[in-house]
């Protein structure tokens, strides 16, 4: 039996620009799943994947680790150690189903959360330069179902906004409106193009979520819900989850421990909820920028530059930290205070998308990430 994804990849290469996206639309839906977890607030990459082997690390951060009650850092090789809150992720790492890309950043080099998140999500080189999200621009390249993408939030985040259809869903504690009212609202919105489109998507998503639509919105329940959407044979193939609260200017030890537990719990929920589909899944978690190498005076860290991205999934060639390590000595830092980025998040996203969905990397780089030259990373996904 011919491998459909491989076939698509070859067909894409052979026909190139002429047919690329259209061919994809005509094909049967992919069985590959992609989850993007947006870590809003700037996760401290140096406290998440600690470069304990760097000669400068002990002096800078030796006394700034996880709280004692959280347990000891988990060594992964001689150079790095994982924060102990990432227990499930560490187990996946040991099985070769998780990896980290360190010293990575978007092209943004200022220190505004909001601008940096816009760059992270639009996939542009400057804030507000692009009006749609990189995941939305990826969707037309995929052989996907009618509702290819879902954001597990009440509104669609920037990463998924754009002209391709994408929906959003979050569990509601409000009582359901009666079916007759919903039908009459459908009729009332028929003449309003904006509301008609939103309303149709909302009703479809609610039908799709079915019995899993209960419960409060924390990252773990959202990840469970995402798995429900992704596991359906005709369901979404791209999902976005947001985890807020990473801006640890003070009392970082306890707060980061809680944040990382949430992230780890979300990964665990995806792993459990996807079942056999986990083997065909890539999860990538990224944040808008890193944090300062030196702690500040209030037990926290301030806005920085280079950070870490987490990649997990059964489709990953994991069990390693991908890094061109820039070093923590004073002369090696960006602006004398931040981890210097040696990898580009757009290259990670482009590489993962191309290898995972069997697309031409050059096509992904050009179509999704625009004119600025991005060299997609390679060798991340089992193809």
């Amino acid at each position, binding site marked *: 039996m011919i491998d459909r994804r491989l076939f698509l990849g070859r067909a894409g290469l052979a026909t190139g620009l002429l047919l690329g996206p259209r061919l994809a639309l005509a094909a049967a839906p992919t069985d590959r799943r992609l989850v993007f977890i947006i870590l809003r607030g700037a996760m401290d990459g140096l406290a998440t994947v600690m470069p304990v082997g760097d000669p400068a690390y002990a002096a800078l951060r030796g006394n700034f680790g996880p709280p004692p009650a959280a347990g000891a850092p988990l060594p992964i090789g001689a150079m790095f150690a994982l924060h102990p809150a990432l227990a499930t992720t560490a187990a996946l790492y040991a099985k070769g189903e998780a990896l980290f890309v360190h010293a990575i950043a978007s092209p943004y080099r200022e220190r505004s959360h909001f601008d940096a998140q816009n760059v992270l999500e639009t996939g542009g080189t400057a804030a507000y330069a692009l009006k749609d999200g990189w995941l939305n621009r990826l969707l037309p390249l995929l052989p996907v179902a009618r509702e290819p993408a879902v954001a597990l939030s009440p509104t669609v985040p920037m990463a998924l906004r754009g002209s391709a259809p994408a929906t959003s869903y979050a569990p509601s*504690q409000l009582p359901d409106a009666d079916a007759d009212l919903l039908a009459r609202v459908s009729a009332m919105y028929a003449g309003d193009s904006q509301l008609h489109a939103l309303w149709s998507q909302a009703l479809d998503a609610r039908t799709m979520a079915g019995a899993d639509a209960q419960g409060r919105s924390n990252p773990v329940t959202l990840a469970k819900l995402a798995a429900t959407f992704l596991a359906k044979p005709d369901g979404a193939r791209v999902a976005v989850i947001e985890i807020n609260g990473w801006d640890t200017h003070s009392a970082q030890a306890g707060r980061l421990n809680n944040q990382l537990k949430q992230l780890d719990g979300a990964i665990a929920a995806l792993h459990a909820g996807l079942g056999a589909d986990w083997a065909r899944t890539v999860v990538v978690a990224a944040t808008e920028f890193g944090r300062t190498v030196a702690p500040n*005076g209030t037990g926290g860290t301030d806005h920085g530059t280079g950070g870490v991205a987490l990649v997990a999934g059964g489709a990953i060639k994991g069990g390693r930290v991908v890094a061109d390590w820039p070093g923590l000595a004073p002369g090696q830092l960006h602006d004398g205070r931040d981890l210097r980025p040696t990898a580009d998040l757009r290259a990670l996203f482009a590489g993962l998308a191309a290898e995972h969905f069997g697309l031409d990397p050059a096509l992904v780089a050009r179509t999704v990430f625009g004119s600025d030259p991005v060299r997609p990373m390679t060798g991340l996904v089992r193809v």
Partner: protein
Amino acid sequence: MVIATPAAFAIAHNRFGLGTRADDAAVADPRADLIRQFDRFDPRPATIAAVPGSAVMARQFREYLAQIRPFLRANGLGNGMAEMPAAAMPARSTEADIRRDLRRQYQDNYGGQARARIAAALTTPAPFPERLVHFWANHFAVSADKLQTIGLAGTLEIEANRPHIGGRFVDLLLAVERHPAMLLYLDQAQSIGPNSAIGVAARARPNARRQPGLNENLGREILELHTLGVGSGYTQADVQQLAQALSGWSVGGFVRRQIGIEAPDGAFVFQPAWHEPGARSLLGKRYDQPGEAQARAMLADLAVHPATARHLATKLTRHFVADVPPPALVDRLAAAHVASGGDLMAMYRLLVAAPESWAVATPKFKTPWDWTISALRAVGAGNAPDLRVVGALGQLGQPIWRSGSPAGWDDIAASWAAPDALLRRVETAGRIAAQAGDRIDARALAPKLLPGVLTAATAQAIARADRPQQGLALLLSSPEFLRR
């Protein structure tokens, strides 16, 4: 003389105000009435005056600290730090109990403040200034996420924003930046200059568990969010200079008192021994004032800086006119801000006078807050909102004072007009209509709320409803009612 059209009545109430009430009387000149509302705006109506303020929040926090400090010391976390994360790891059940008690206390306070805000929005005789209170609270957002800010976030709006809504921007800015909610939310309250008396003394004890230091969070957000705006040309050096000037700005009752001067609970206090000494340079200008006056002088200049004027003008125009603000109107507002020395009324007057504000064809999509308040006003809700209204705002995606970031909520349709958010509004409309019962005839109410705006299609959908409650739910869900 301008003749007020029915649509002008609708815009004055729905776009500038908080939504029409059935008993709103027609006025001859809606534009003049909007400005006159500032004369009858009450910064401290009875419902709001009844809510405990930041001094009480500070006292409750001090009492909590006294109980929990022994546990923190035992865990090696003490070190005089007042700040605790909202969900830190409980080491023992008693410690968790103490924290839970304060959380409950603060959540009760939060609920009381939120209900007072809703009551004021439902009953105010001055909806335009009241809307501006909400606008500025969002501009100077403090999110009730950290344990301290759960009880304090609402007091910022009550104590710092409301009194200055129609005054000079510099007074509003100073009131906000000196308020305990802001000082604690953006980590200013314990920022200590490295060359201050305390900073120097700490370096003489190199084995101290934690060296005091500067925190640049508030300084950065003042430049990025509160005044100049991101991308307006300031640098990281400017952030640091402002942060150094701000060192020593702190709060009584919340922070380590053994190394600072005493101050009443929740009151602004300047700690001279924490202040980074020396002259500073911000945006190329030298500031050699001593102590507290240095950052004050910087804020006074920032308040009337042309970049600040443009930033504020853009946000106000986006709020009242269009997601993409017309550049010519932004130019006019910004010029008026500078020319008036930062008198907020100058910008408000221009907004009310601008033809762009009265264009019927380009309404703004209501935020969940706008929609909920206008729906409750539409059904004549009065003084005592149910606590469930506070919860519903969370379900609709915009919990009060909980934007999650100092940037506040977005003010564009793309952030609010989303599939699931729309479904929740319709569900909530059904709920509000069910509570209103059959006492409201939506067929008669619709043209009162939406004069000159109501479409034949919506009127027909309402008329065909199978019962009054359904007709009202359709009115509150209608395309015209979702926009302002």
